[in-house]
């Protein structure tokens, strides 16, 4: 890495500070933050790392493509996307998450790994390796000019949507009784149950919220990447999982920040790396992830010691 720093740091910083790159990176970070909330919320309540989260997004994207290929109105497509993703989330909760409650984190992680491959291979059987195209919202890709910077509408939509969702979630967690139950479960599941928190209720609600976020992310992603294949959103999910752990799984805020950060850094590197090195972008990102984990294994944004676990 030394030679890259020596030869191109000046250019890199210049490109990275470019307003265009900054806006795009923040947009990507916002979408990744939404995914991080979906993964972090379920982890908090069930101590389960949902590797299959990306396949929920993939399923939603296929629903959108399905609707757009039949020429259905945008609203119907988005509704279908939410219905498919929420139904799948609930099925997953009932069939896999709930029976695994109380198992070790490793068993649960491998189980969701299996679910992820299952959904991916079903999509492959159903839609083939080339996938389908979702085109109903591509208008949002048009740029508008703000203070001399070309900003695509979807970037603004993504940032605003993420901000609204996060505010709503904070209100839900802090101002409602189900939110209180969820926070109590995240803190200490067995004590919460002793005090009358219904475990099934809490896990269903967290899965539904996570599913709704996945559907939203599917809508946002299909605007920018309209070709939907069985491995759709897989790479992004792996990055968000890494980001969530880098941020710190013990609190939802730190997990969300971690998700935002990895999206933002990924956008910066993508925008500012010279093209000869951009193919090594995943190596740079994963290298950073390893470095941060070695220095702060409990997470960048956590205070004190985080969760002690063995996976």
């Amino acid at each position, binding site marked *: 890495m030394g030679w890259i720093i020596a030869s191109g740091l000046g250019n890199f910083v210049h490109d990275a500070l470019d307003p265009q790159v900054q806006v795009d990176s923040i947009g990507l970070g916002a979408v990744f933050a939404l995914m991080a909330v979906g993964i972090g919320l379920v982890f908090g309540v069930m101590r389960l790392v949902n590797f299959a989260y990306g396949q929920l997004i993939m399923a939603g994207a296929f629903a959108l493509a399905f609707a757009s290929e039949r020429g259905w109105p945008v609203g119907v497509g988005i509704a279908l996307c939410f219905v498919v993703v929420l139904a799948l989330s609930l099925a997953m909760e009932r069939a896999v998450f709930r029976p695994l409650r109380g198992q070790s984190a490793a068993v649960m992680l*491998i189980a969701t790994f*299996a679910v992820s491959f299952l959904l991916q291979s079903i999509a*492959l059987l159903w839609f083939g390796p080339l996938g389908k195209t979702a085109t109903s919202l591509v208008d949002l890709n048009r740029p508008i000019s703000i203070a001399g910077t070309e900003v695509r509408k979807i970037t603004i939509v993504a940032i605003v949507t993420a901000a609204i969702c996060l505010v709503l979630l904070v209100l839900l967690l802090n101002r409602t009784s189900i939110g209180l139950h969820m926070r109590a479960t995240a803190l200490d599941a067995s004590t919460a149950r002793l005090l009358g928190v219904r475990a099934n209720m809490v896990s269903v609600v967290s899965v539904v919220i996570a599913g709704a976020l996945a559907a939203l992310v599917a809508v946002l992603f299909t605007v920018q990447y309209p070709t939907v294949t069985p491995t759709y959103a897989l790479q992004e999910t792996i990055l968000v999982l890494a980001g969530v*752990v880098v941020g710190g799984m013990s609190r939802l805020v730190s997990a969300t920040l971690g998700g935002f950060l990895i999206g933002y850094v990924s956008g910066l590197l993508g925008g500012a790396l010279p093209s000869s090195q951009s193919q090594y972008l995943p190596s740079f990102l994963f290298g950073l992830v390893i470095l941060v984990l070695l220095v702060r294994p409990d997470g960048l944004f956590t205070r004190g010691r985080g*969760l002690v676990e063995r*996976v």
Partner: protein
Amino acid sequence: MRARHAFVEFAAPAALVVGTALLGTVVSQTTEIYFVTALISVSTVVALYVFVGNSGVLSFGHIAFFAVGVWAAGVLSVPVAEKPATMPYLFDFLSSTTVGNVPSLVVAALAGGVFAVLVGLPLMRLSGLAAGIATFAVLGITNNLLRYYEKIGPGLNTFSSVPETTGLLQAAVGAVIVIAAAFVYQRSRLGRQLRAAREDPAAARAVGVSIYRQRLWAFGLSGLLIGFAGGLYIHFIPINVDAVYLDLTFVTLAMLVIGGTTSLWGAVVGALFVSALDSLLAEMEAGMTLFGWNIDIPDGSRIVVVSSIMALVLILRPSGLTGGREFSLPRIGRRAEA
């Protein structure tokens, strides 16, 4: 009595491997391929077991060491004259050297082992989710580099002209060697210390076990064995970088988990069980006749069935088909004693 009991832990999986190989000799040429694949899977899964089973720490990174073994053996085995066709940008010392079958397997094992130790030196300090994600990151980096760095291999091209020396004999001998190494390790002082740390880290520390050092030993040995398995694999079929990424990671973990993570017997049973199932489904995808029924399932059904079974096993029997126990002979007369 105790020595005999211990020997069974090696003899039973080894016998299963030899039995599979013998069965492979009587079937047709096309069916034989399934048996060789199954035997290589045994090597791969047992190598993964050496670390995951004994330490109880999950690793998503082992296929990176497998891939390094594939690259080492593959690049070195292609005849010098054939190298420019698929690998035009190789370093000089790689493009001008070709080694024989057995040396290439040794190099593959060493490459996997050295890489694992280098990765393990910093990473084995981590545990929990951080370790899982960090090993995943190693897999991601390795795959990314092998995919685009064409001075050390074919990049996106498929390996071609690697001598196909891995047949039933080599695959079976290889599997028995890997099983023997895993057996010797888990009965050794080092293996027992690591298993003690798996069961109760605090108690193990209290009696002076360095968990970091024990994990590093196992990680290195495991990388060595899986690199060797990678060497066997590239001498069997020509593959490219996509064949040594997420899918293989998933299938290998699935085999280990389905068999039972914490025993050598489980690793071997899981590898052979899933391979058998996979082969049967592959035949069905191609269309086969069974007891007068014509069975033809759509392409790609294989992974649907394998992943469903994996999820089912995890939900119904989290400790795997063997319950994570070693093979043992029924003790005659035990009931009378009780």
